[in-house]
């Protein structure tokens, strides 16, 4: 059964460093998303991506964040200068209609 995959599963970084989180969506899906979940809180939408451009982004998704689909299979989230408050689980999702989530990347900013 096709699934969304994400790498790495856990990323530890120093405050101010850049991180890139990687995702491989389900191959025939056209819509791609990033969400995050701070420990103990609800899952929050960050950004949606369709037809090689951002469809919508949340207030969280400021200039420090960017997304890219560098080839036909990968979808990445870059955080340019990480802050302590960026520590969270980051989930990639893809959809036709129903959204399927990856296992997540746990980002720890020290």
């Amino acid at each position: 059964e096709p699934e969304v995959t994400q790498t790495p599963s856990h990323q530890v970084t120093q405050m101010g460093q850049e991180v890139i989180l990687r995702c491989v969506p389900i191959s025939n899906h056209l819509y791609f998303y990033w969400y995050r979940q701070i420990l103990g809180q609800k899952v929050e939408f960050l950004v949606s991506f369709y037809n090689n451009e951002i469809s919508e982004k949340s207030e969280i998704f400021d200039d420090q964040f960017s997304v890219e689909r560098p080839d036909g299979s990968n979808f990445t989230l870059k955080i340019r200068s990480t802050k302590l408050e960026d520590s969270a689980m980051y989930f990639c999702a893809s959809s036709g209609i129903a959204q399927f989530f990856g296992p997540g990347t746990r980002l720890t900013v020290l």
Partner: protein
Amino acid sequence: QKEVEQDPGPLSVPEGAIVSLNCTYSNSAFQYFMWYRQYSRKGPELLMYTYSSGNKEDGRFTAQVDKSSKYISLFIRDSQPSDSATYLCAMFPEAGGTSYGKLTFGQGTILTVHP
């Protein structure tokens, strides 16, 4: 008022019980309604989704949507200890706008099914 409200529980039931999980929402634009199951520090796993009002059944799971009341439910029949997890409701608006696919989640309900 929060866009999506969900009682966080925790909810504890004996094995074999019928479980009822619910969410209310305020945004009348929501048209697609999803239920996810999430284990600790794992990704949400899609259980069911429905479009607009009505019922949908899949095995032991039944999803109901009442758009007039802005209320959705998930019923689990013959609950098992393996059903113990956090259950998340999520929803998004109709196709055609930039918010299509932008899921708004509830807080999640923690469910424990004890043998």
